[in-house]
């Protein structure tokens, strides 16, 4: 069968834009996607004419986030594989294991690799061993405040004390000088114990500002990995990425080559399978320092697709079905410049307040070099229960300026009525001098008032 990748029926354990994105590749390959949907999404336009199974009520904890319901639904729908998309259960190793135990192929890495990458210091240890540069700090967890002080003196202030089992900024404290270490250690440790039941901390030098650069990786089950270049995601608001582009406008070619190679080696070393992303912080010297690995498809994967011409979802499915990578590194050609803007149902001039509601009008202009990934159409009601991403616009050009200009034209041609979106902010950013000259870091949005 033309395009057959090994699965006849694929369960899509996600919603909205990513669900529609996965289905698009399925359609092309002759795979039947079955959507697991919450009651809130049961009548969404992207589900029309599709097979779907209702997982449960709108609240994600009882639908998209319940591993047992998802597995039952997938089995019931006679699917043989599950694509978790991003968010929800995508990085839940227990869910990955559950799928495998029940005879569903999980489209992603093996549970134990996902688990390893989800743990702070073991992941760093693995990456250090594979030759990646890390943010200077403690090797493993700290024994006590005394050791924290010693390591802090070594790496230089300010430093960040972070919970080993942490997340979401809890169990985290900054020490700006030696006399702040002891109390920062106590506070972070106590908070970590209360929040995660684990008081252990590790320490990193605090790099303020810096740029966020990440590498797209793809690996098969046979120990072979390739990269699809880097993405620069420095335009952020509270760690939420707004604009992603490739290549990074500020990355030194030698540093790029060195890190890409090390990242591929590291991916192979940990036995990674599928699509994954390593995130780095670029410090003021231009060095890329490993932060974490996202063991899933990313929202901004389209940027790499546009530059490489590779459909990442298709490659994910092929790898999951046991096929060896069919692309060699030397066959990957990264061309031109791609930029993605995330259009969220938020009002950027009102503190990014979510704006759920009906799209009274929705029109996206068709233009050269513009790709639009979305699950919405006119009349769609943005539900209040989930994240606010409604659309991604990806602009491609021979160079950064062309890509930016195309993006501006597309966004200015975008017609939305009924809700506010982040589109006007994107236009302002793209037109700003700071953005055009690449003069910004993660602390502030270029061209947009704080």
């Amino acid at each position, binding site marked *: 069968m033309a395009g057959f990748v090994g699965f006849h029926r694929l369960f899509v354990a996600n919603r909205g834009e990513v669900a529609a994105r996965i289905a698009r590749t399925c359609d092309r390959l002759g795979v039947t996607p079955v959507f697991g949907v919450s009651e809130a999404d049961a009548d969404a336009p992207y589900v029309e004419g599709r097979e779907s199974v209702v997982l449960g009520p709108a609240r994600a904890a009882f639908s998209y986030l319940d*591993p*047992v319901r998802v597995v039952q639904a997938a089995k019931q729908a006679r699917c043989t594989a599950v694509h978790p998309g991003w968010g929800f259960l995508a990085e839940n*190793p*227990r869910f990955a*294991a*559950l799928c*495998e*135990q*029940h*005879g569903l*192929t999980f489209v992603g890495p*093996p*549970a*134990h*690799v996902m*688990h*390893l990458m989800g743990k702070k210091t073991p992941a760093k240890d693995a990456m250090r061993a594979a030759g990646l540069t890390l943010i200077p700090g403690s090797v493993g967890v700290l024994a006590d405040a005394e050791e924290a002080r010693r390591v802090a003196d070594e790496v230089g202030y300010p430093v960040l004390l972070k919970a080993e089992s942490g997340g979401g900024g809890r169990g985290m404290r900054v020490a700006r000088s030696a006399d702040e270490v002891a109390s920062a250690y106590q506070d972070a440790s106590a908070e970590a114990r209360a929040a995660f*039941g*684990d008081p252990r901390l590790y320490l990193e030098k605090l790099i303020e500002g810096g740029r966020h650069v990440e590498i797209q990786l793809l690996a098969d089950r046979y120990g072979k990995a390739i990269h699809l270049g880097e993405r620069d995601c420095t335009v952020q608001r509270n760690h939420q990425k707004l604009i992603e582009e490739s290549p990074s406008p500020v990355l030194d070619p030698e540093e790029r080559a060195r890190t890409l190679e090390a990242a591929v080696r590291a991916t192979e070393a940990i036995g990674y399978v599928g699509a994954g992303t390593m995130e780095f912080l670029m410090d003021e010297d231009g060095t890329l320092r490993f932060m974490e690995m996202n063991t899933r498809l990313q929202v901004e994967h389209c940027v790499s697709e546009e530059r490489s011409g590779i459909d990442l979802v298709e490659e994910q499915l092929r790898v999951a079905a046991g096929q060896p990578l069919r692309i060699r590194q030397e066959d990957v050609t990264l061309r031109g410049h791609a930029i993605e803007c995330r259009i969220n149902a938020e009002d950027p001039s009102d503190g990014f307040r979510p704006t759920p509601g009906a799209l009274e009008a929705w029109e996206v202009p068709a233009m050269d070099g513009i790709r639009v990934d979305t699950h919405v159409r006119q009349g769609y009601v943005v539900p209040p229960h989930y994240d606010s991403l409604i659309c991604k616009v990806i602009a491609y050009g021979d160079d950064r300026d062309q890509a930016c200009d195309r993006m501006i034209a597309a966004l200015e041609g975008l017609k939305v009525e009924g809700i506010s979106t982040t589109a006007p902010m994107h236009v302002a950013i793209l037109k700003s001098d700071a953005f055009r000259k690449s003069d910004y870091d993660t602390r502030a949005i270029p061209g947009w008032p704080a």
Partner: protein
Amino acid sequence: MAHVPLTPIGRPRTDVLDERAWREHQEKLAPLEEKLRARRAEVESGWGDKYVERVHAKGKLTTRERLARLADPGTDLFEVGTFVNYGDTFGDKPLTSPAAGVVTAFARVEGRWCMVIANDNTVASGSWWPRTPEKIERAQMMALRLKLPTVYLVDCSGLFLPEQSRSFPGAKGAGHIFKMNSLLSASGVPQIAGVFGDCIAGGGYMPIISDRVYMTEQAYMVIAGAALIKGAKSQKLTSLGIGGPEVHVHQSGCADVRVPDDETAIDAIRREVARLPSSAADYYRGGAGAIEPAHPPRELAGILPVDHRESYDAMEVLARLTDQSLFWECMPHIGEEIVCGVGKVGGLYAGFVINRQGLVGDPEHPDEHRPAAILYRGGIAKVAAFSRACNDDGIPLIWLQDISGFDIGTEAERQGLLAYGSSLIYTNSTNDVPMFTVLLRKASGAGYYAMSGLPYDPVVQLSTSISRLSVMEGRTLAIATYNSKLDDDFEIVTQDEDERREIAEGMRAVEKRIEADMDPYVAARQMDTDEIVELGALRDWLEVFVEASYQSTGHRRIKNPRIWSLHDLRELHEGIR
């Protein structure tokens, strides 16, 4: 791919217990586990620093230093029999014998689990005390059952002679060690010995059946030392001269390799182990890896109430022992008083049997509830079928006991619990899959036997600091003893004040004695349990046991899950889907 339908179990600790109960449980347990740690440290220190210095003065390592060098860096030793002879004294002096003068431990060497048997040279130069031979034989039996390479670190001046009548003769007398050496050898279990010092008489035989025998320059092996040879003094004969490496490596061929010192010997033994086949555990993991439980195993210290009358949720215990807290409960609708099922430990499948606590449904009387923590007909049949299936399928079995016994009374007899019990006993007795038993709390009566207590030959039986091992609770036993003096409600019949006082005192005395006997250190002292462990460390121990069960290939049937008879049981029980 084989489907083993594990599902998530367990709740966060904060949902299981409120803050007050959690703190209370922990506070009650803490002193008991503190005592355990203190006593372990006491045993580990042997006869103390003076004897350590004496060993060092000879240019030798202490036994514990040898063990530390033998095991892979950064790994823990899992010692069994720590408290054998604890509190006993011997001879006229009287003398203590910490750990019965021999350390027996599961140790990871070059990535393989080994059983290490090491005479403690800081306790009477590694003499054999009463129970020392039994302790060594028990460790050899564990090695035999798991087919684990066995390492002997020999440094033994022979029997502690004043007490020879308690260690020389008998079915488990010292000579049985060499029979075990032979059985291990006959079963193809690799044995490697290092001889580090005195090896007199029996001490000389312990290494000699091993596949490879290393001798240091300070080692000698003799049937009888110079002390027993007539004229030895005038001829200036020494034991080292009679049976040192010069003699045994180069002339007699009783040993294989001569090495200068302890360090070299240990390193050489590590290289021997490295030549053995690597562990099959990773093969059986099938490319998957070990992942810790989703709910922290350390929380077991606090989830389990110290008071044996208080109940808890058995699933919460399993959730803190199984990988990712994923578990497949088999036949959940039958015999609710006990949970049977499969989970992974360190990436490897294991069968679990654990008693439920509190009240459960009663199939005979659907509107009523009955106490769990005992076995009824349905539960016994379920456990027997599950145990048999695990044996067929080659799945190591873990028995988690907190049980007061079998159901009793007219209904129980009419239902034939004796017969149900006998089927379970037959099953467990004839299983050859490795079984491991943990006495979480209560281990009473027929329940202790039915759930593979030590008399049913589990490879290892662990106790906790709150284990209560006895035929019945003290109060029940006092009632049984004074049965003829009691009425229907177990009240004293006689109205005579003196007689009443006497009976009451007698019952109290019985109760007190049973209470004292239930102390886990008593069981450990007399080898009625293999080790006492901290609740929070239970998962670590199970990881060792399960991995050790999967280590060796070629002798046990660890089947592909597609052909597990457990799946047939599921279909039969739940209907074909």
